[in-house]
């Protein structure tokens, strides 16, 4: 398909490009996996209730609270960094917002804005510590996970001797903004809309904007990115802030849905969102990932989480099942990516 070229410049012919470019898409595995898992549960547990509307609503709700955070986490992973503190940040958001609504009597709008400001602070702190210390973000955010989670529990203990703040819904009264977080859109919870919108936004930013191009470069080859004048530190701090902001959105959804702010909320969420992102094709080493893939990773997580209930296995086996799913997805992702990126030069 190529015209002959002079002398020693050689490459293998560029056959199979279109198939390759399909397989190299990071979201390929997650979409295929979601279809497979849906088919599995539909065939084997469809009669038991997996296909019911209530069930669909349930797994979409679980998937949304993971996916809303997993979308910005994907951008952060592509930029080459990690955030383990998101679960603790959800709890911090729940307690701050519940406190302002229940104890301080604030309306929903200022309470939410104040909580977002707290999130910006947490995100900026995470980001600042990561770029200034140049230590692995895994360790930095593990530390902030403990600090934030402990502080939330400790402060609430001092405040009311408890680990929850109850009665958020009644304190908020008829505030119309409550609908934004726990309303229903048709048969589904409004969190589904947030999830779709945030995924779309993250995908657009990453794939189609200058900022996204620089996210890819920062995670793909930081030294080269710095040399072209990209301000990688600022970029990373902005992404940490976006991640923390998404965590307080989930916090707001939780407190109005469950009617309670909980200092022990979202324990382990940090691993759930990374699981969704990695099933969705993101590389932990940076430079590669897809918010669309992550969307399906979160959807798959939600389906397995809820659908497992209908299988004959006791639900304690859920994690084992999930672990195998993750393992299979990562191996397939790794294989397809390597195959697609193999240099086609024959001269080395």
């Amino acid at each position, binding site marked *: 398909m190529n015209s002959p070229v002079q002398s020693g*410049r*050689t490459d293998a012919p560029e056959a199979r*490009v279109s198939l390759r470019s399909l397989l190299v898409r990071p979201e390929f595995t997650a979409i295929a996996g979601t279809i497979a898992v849906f088919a599995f549960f539909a065939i084997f547990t469809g009669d038991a209730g997996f296909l019911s509307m209530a069930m669909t609503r349930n797994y979409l709700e679980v998937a949304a609270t993971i996916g809303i955070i997993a979308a910005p986490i994907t951008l952060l992973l592509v930029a080459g960094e990690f955030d383990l503190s998101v679960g603790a940040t959800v709890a911090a958001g729940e307690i701050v917002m519940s406190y302002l609504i229940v104890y301080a009597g604030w309306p929903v709008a200022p309470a939410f804005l104040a909580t977002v400001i707290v999130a910006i602070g947490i995100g900026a702190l995470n980001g600042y510590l990561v770029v200034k210390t140049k230590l692995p973000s895994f360790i930095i955010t593990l530390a902030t996970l403990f600090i934030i989670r402990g502080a939330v529990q400790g402060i609430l203990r001092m405040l009311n001797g408890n680990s929850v703040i109850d009665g958020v819904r009644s304190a908020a009264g008829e505030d119309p903004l409550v609908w934004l977080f726990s309303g229903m859109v048709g048969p589904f919870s409004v969190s589904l809309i947030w999830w779709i919108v945030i995924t779309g936004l993250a995908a657009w930013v990453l794939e189609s*904007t*200058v900022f996204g191009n620089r996210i890819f470069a920062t995670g*793909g080859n930081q*030294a080269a990115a710095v040399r072209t004048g990209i301000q990688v530190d600022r970029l990373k701090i902005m992404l940490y802030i976006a991640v923390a902001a998404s965590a307080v959105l989930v916090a707001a959804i939780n407190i109005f849905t469950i009617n309670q702010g909980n200092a022990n909320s979202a324990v382990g969420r940090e691993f759930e969102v990374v699981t969704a992102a990695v099933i969705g094709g993101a590389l932990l080493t940076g430079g590669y990932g897809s918010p669309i893939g992550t969307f399906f990773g979160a959807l798959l997580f939600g389906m397995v989480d809820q659908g497992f209930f209908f299988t004959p296995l006791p639900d304690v086996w859920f994690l084992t099942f999930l672990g195998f799913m993750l393992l299979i997805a990562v191996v397939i992702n790794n294989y397809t990516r390597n195959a697609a*990126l193999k240099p086609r*030069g024959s001269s080395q």
Partner: protein
Amino acid sequence: MSTNIPIIEARNVSKEFAGIAALQEVSLKVSAGEVLCLLGDNGAGKSTLIKILSGVHAPSSGEILLDGKPAAFREPRDARNAGIATVHQYGGTVPLMSISRNFFLGAEIVKGRWPLRRLDLQTMNRIALEQIQSLGVRRVTDSSRPVGTLSGGQRQALAICRATYFGARLLILDEPTSALGVREATTVLKLVAEVRSRGIGVILITHNAHHAMSIGDHFVVLGHGKVVASFSRGEKSAAEVVGLMAGGVELQALELELEQFKPKAVS
């Protein structure tokens, strides 16, 4: 070649790090359409000199002249703005990103108004492909494919192409052939010849005396931070140059390499 004012000239440049002299009284100059080969063993001071020319370090004494006028680069950006582009080993590319995204990294083409401003990937793909093919790398036919699928020589080509497109008048190529096989190295040397024919000045840093001899117009050999020799094309043989570089230590190994490397098509 050209006899006009050099694009860049170093006059008696010295650099000390914590009292230790890395460079002593080094002078060199490069004019438009010339290839200056900078040779020397590891630790001879090549990297320090390059960092001074590209604005990473300031010289301790001596001066840098840009188009005949004293230049003070405070940071690499100053040198870049003056048209001095450094291409690092492996081209400094991002393997998982497409050719065109790499090409325009840091200077992306956009369309639309904020907040809907977005990358103009079509235009970026088209220009990147035109540019890279115009430098003779015609095997690359799809600039939306990842740079990771390119060979080492093609990545160098991409980086060189990118630098010239964005207005480089002087290219500093840091060991562009050292990680490459013989054929790939030939590709890169041809590319250097092509760039030179467009009137761009080139400083080519290399360990490989034969690569240098095949393309260079002028040669500067550094040893222990000083200029050991400075001469023009045809004044010394490859064997002499190798002797200057390393006191003949590497001679045998190099002769072996010279055996297999025949510069056929270098202009």
